[in-house]
């Protein structure tokens, strides 16, 4: 029993969080949350989605944007499929949010038989660029070299993560053609490892994950899929400059269930807009992770995400 006692003591010592059961006042005027909010994240704690969500929740709490408790619930079953389906099935639910990036939309549309009609987009909070890199020892010095090699029938292995990056590969395959294979990795980090070891010819990565390696010249940027060039050290032509119709910028967004009451949609859209306008958000998240600050409210986010759905369901 001593062990248990020790456990209790330690738990008591360590517990920093208290379940604050806020007083229930009937709200007058615009809708506000009436109880604790559950925020579903469909990938594991510590990953990109988790950091994104934690940052928003922190800001909501610290800046007093939302005064009810928000609990982040990591629902990773079925690669996140179960969590996404669960949220989309909720009826008349105003207190559940879901982190929903382009990397979540893709499996949702392609494998889980879902579409955006099952969810209510609330905001796009940031955009993330993608860039194609080669190893410093690579025979290819520029994207022109790569394209020439492809045209002459050379076989190229492109590495990238299993989620967002593949769309770029697909677009390249369609637009440029040639003998290419995509080597899927669990994460961008793994793809970069393969590239550093010379096991793939090129890798698709996000700027934040590759910043240091590109800064030191270990990896060399070849081309970017964004609309415009990145600043140093990622300065490389866009696909459009090279004459290919590939333009692509993945997003980080937030959605609610399809059946979320209109006043709650308005509330959350507004609350997320407030978060995106804070300095903390810009300094501690956007700049730190080299993202593109591009907040869209509920209506614009719907249009934006719809474009992705159309692309994925092609």
């Amino acid at each position, binding site marked *: 029993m001593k062990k248990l006692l020790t456990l209790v003591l*330690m738990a008591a010592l360590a517990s920093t969080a208290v379940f604050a059961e806020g007083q229930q006042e009937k709200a007058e005027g615009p809708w506000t949350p009436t109880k604790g909010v559950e925020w579903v994240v469909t990938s594991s*704690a510590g990953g990109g989605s988790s950091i994104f969500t934690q940052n928003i929740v922190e800001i909501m709490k610290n800046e007093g944007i939302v005064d009810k408790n928000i609990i982040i619930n990591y629902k990773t079953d079925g690669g996140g499929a179960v969590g996404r389906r669960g949220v989309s099935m909720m009826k008349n639910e105003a207190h559940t949010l879901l982190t929903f990036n382009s990397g979540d939309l893709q499996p949702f549309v392609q*494998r889980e038989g879902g579409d955006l009609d099952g969810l209510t987009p609330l905001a796009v909070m940031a955009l993330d660029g993608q860039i194609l890199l080669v190893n410093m020892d690579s025979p290819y010095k520029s994207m022109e070299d790569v394209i020439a090699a492809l045209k002459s029938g050379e076989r190229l292995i492109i590495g990238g993560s299993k989620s967002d990056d593949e769309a770029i590969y697909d677009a390249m395959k369609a637009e440029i053609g040639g003998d290419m294979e995509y080597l899927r990795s669990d994460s961008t980090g*793994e793809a*970069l490892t393969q590239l*550093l070891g010379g096991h793939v010819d090129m890798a698709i990565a996000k700027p934040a994950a590759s910043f240091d390696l590109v800064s030191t010249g270990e990896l060399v940027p070849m081309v970017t899929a964004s609309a415009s060039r990145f600043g140093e050290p990622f300065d490389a032509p866009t696909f459009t400059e090279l004459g290919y119709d590939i333009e692509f910028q993945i997003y980080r967004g937030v959605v609610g269930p399809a059946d979320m009451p209109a006043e709650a949609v308005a509330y959350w859209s507004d609350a997320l807009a407030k978060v995106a306008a804070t300095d903390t958000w810009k300094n501690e998240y956007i700049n730190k992770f080299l993202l593109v600050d591009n907040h869209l409210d509920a209506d614009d986010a719907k249009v934006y995400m719809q474009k992705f759905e159309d692309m994925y369901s092609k």
Partner: protein
Amino acid sequence: METLTLLLQGFGTALTIQNFLAAAAGALLGLVVGAMPGIGSLAGVALLLPLTFKFNPVTGIIMLSAIYYANMYGGSYSSILINIPGDSPAVMTAIDGHPMAKKGEPGKALFTSNLSSFIGGTIGIIILTITGPALARLGLKFGPVEMAALLMVAMTSLGWLLGDNPTKGVVSTLIGVLIATIGFDIVVGTPRYDFGSLHLLGGVSFIPLVIGMFGFSQVMEMMEPAKNGDSIDMKLSLKDSILNKSEMRRLLGPSIRSSFLGTIIGILPGAGATTGSFLGYMTEKKVGKNKDKMGTGVLEGVAAAEAANNSAAAGAFAPLLSLGIPGSGTGAVLLGGLLMYGLTPGPRLFQNEPEFTWGLIASLYVANMITLFVALSIIPFLIKILKVPVKIMVPIITAVCIMGAYSASNSLYGVMLMLASGFIGFHLKKNNYPIAPLLLAFVLAPTLERDFRRSFLISDGSPWIFFQKPIACGLIIFLLLTILSPLFRKLFAMTKKKRPPQGVSDSTLSPA
């Protein structure tokens, strides 16, 4: 020498009362969380990370590393005491650790585990300190082709694990492999064997599986009266937990061997602590002095698994620090932690911020020492668990299994999966099917399959790629030799009648 000066400076910054207390607190928390089945080191570090932000960077990182180490220590506690591995590397610890506890040596098993973990961590950090970034470069040489070859070598040593009845051992292994094929196939990017279920799309998760197979099935076994599993009636004092001189000597060899092996495995991309502890144990089983008794509850088994496990964790820091690439899920969380402190691990870290980097390495070391100290001092409390009568243990373990399985993915599906695994595991055990090979195959087979198929993707369908790359070629030749050597031995024995069969000691599985 500059390195050494910097390291000593690092110790200077690291060793303050405040840091010491923070590390001790981190160690305690980490031990508790690590010992909870279902939490594991990834979730443990992720959940405790925010606690460290209340301190200045040096203190925070020391606390973070203490939590990390303690999580790894804690994972072996539940596998030794109640035969429920806290995380996947601890499966190997359970093989000898739990039998030791049953024999009445739970304290010694825990002591061995802590000490070997410490040795593993220490050697891992020392190698990291000496070689620095160079080692991470070496790890990069291991791409899909090399990893596939290495894992094929590893798999051939699975054989002895199968137990008394090889048929059942093989059945058990293959079931593990098949369960692991369920879910997303990363090579082609489509799901398979999901049978239309959303839950199966992402595969079967390991934690509920292991809690069920080891933990819950055991609860069901405990209900049998004949099995005298009632509280062990022995004196379980601290004095009996301390290893004597000859035991210390027995511990050192396996620990040191395993530590070197583990560090190397840890550096390889995507290999991880489970592969490390598996290979550490297997090597000991092949070359160790006490190899025949391994599996029956000897401290060499615990030492080899734990030292390899912890050194692999240290080795995994190499790519994180020098390339900025996290080697594991836990590494990714730690990377997140470092970023929060305004540090970007990567090639420039050692050059631009040497003080901090060496300070960090010193912190890792300090944290490891403090964790050892804390861990050893709670052994007397821990072994009391075994004195709790089975009648009380049954409902408590059941409750812990349910909570742990729920927390793994915050869903009832986890609980259902756990109960189903428990049910299956129970029947398998009743029929003498070994469980450990099932779980190990579940962890290791997917990596082998993935890298094997990636190799073909790279070579455009040609198997010769395994002979074109020098490291892979060496490993394949080694593999062929191990497979063929019994054949040759037989031939040899036939021509020259008298010949002891035990004389072959295959060299260790050191890659490259």
